[in-house]
């Protein structure tokens, strides 16, 4: 590997930007891939397959053998609302290797005791937003039920093209939410991206089961 490719990979990883190093195994020649980079005809299709499967792999092409090493940012989960469902969700999301950030301005909820070992902000989302940095490898889950807390981060998540955006609440609650978000300029296509009522329909009937339904839906959005 060339030293400048190594430096570039490290810098992109730091910024949570996906990249890949494609090595011709026989010659050692290397290409650094970033979004929108056009590859040779022989590489383009197998590369897209590897990227979709999110798996680094060796491929055979007419031009020889290559190894595609994908450097993809770890998925992250931003939860608005340090509620009971969030407690169950956090323990399972940790097992699934998600980096977790929880935000809830109600300091009685947002305690480190209730949420050990996660990044926790007992503040309004607007006040700490510079620390959050949403991106396409982030899932945003709004669980407070309170428009004052949930609406703004939901809008930001849609703008940032988060791979998953979900909000707790019934169809009726969600209908009103959509009206408010539309009034603040969110397009109809963007609103359709919000998963609400949140979670896969598995008949979940308590906080833990709702957390299972949410996590399953997040994983589905991430993998499929």
């Amino acid at each position: 590997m060339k030293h400048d490719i190594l430096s570039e990979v490290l810098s992109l990883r730091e910024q949570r930007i996906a990249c890949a190093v494609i090595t011709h195994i026989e010659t050692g020649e290397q290409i650094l891939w970033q979004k929108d980079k056009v590859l040779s005809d022989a590489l383009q299709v197998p590369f897209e397959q590897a990227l979709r499967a999110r798996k680094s792999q060796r491929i055979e092409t007419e031009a020889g053998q290559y190894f595609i090493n994908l450097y993809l940012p770890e998925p992250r989960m931003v939860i608005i609302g340090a509620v009971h469902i969030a407690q169950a969700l956090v323990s399972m999301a940790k097992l699934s290797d998600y980096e977790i950030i929880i935000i809830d301005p109600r300091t009685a909820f947002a305690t480190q005791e209730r949420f050990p070992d996660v990044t926790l902000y007992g503040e309004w989302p607007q006040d700490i937003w510079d620390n959050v940095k949403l991106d396409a490898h982030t899932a945003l889950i709004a669980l407070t039920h309170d428009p004052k807390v949930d609406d703004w981060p939901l809008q930001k998540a849609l703008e940032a093209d988060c791979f998953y955006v979900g909000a707790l609440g019934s169809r009726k609650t969600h209908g009103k939410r959509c009206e408010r978000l539309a009034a603040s300029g969110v397009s109809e296509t963007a609103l359709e991206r919000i998963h609400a009522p949140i979670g896969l329909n598995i008949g979940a009937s308590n906080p833990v089961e709702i957390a299972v339904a949410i996590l399953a839906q997040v994983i589905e959005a991430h993998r499929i």
Partner: protein
Amino acid sequence: MNEDPLKIAQGWLADGRDVALATVIETWGSAPRKTGSHLVIDGEGNFEGSVSGGCVEGAVVYGAMDVIESGKPQVLEFGVADETAWEVGLSCGGKVMVYLEKIK
């Protein structure tokens, strides 16, 4: 979390050390490290990261000395011995293929 081997390589290069990079490029069966995993080695044989559960690192470090000297990449293939695989919690042996190159 363990420190990123690529960051360690960057630090070593900044110190003026020779550095080789090993990458798992293929696995069969229950190999302990997935494809894309890195091990970095310096000219003195110091290493960080892993390409297996600890069973083939010695051979990779040995190969790295060659690669550092010649500057030419190599592909190494290893079968993970059953008893080693068992130690790392796998019920059967796996195989790994490792690409070894010098960082220039």
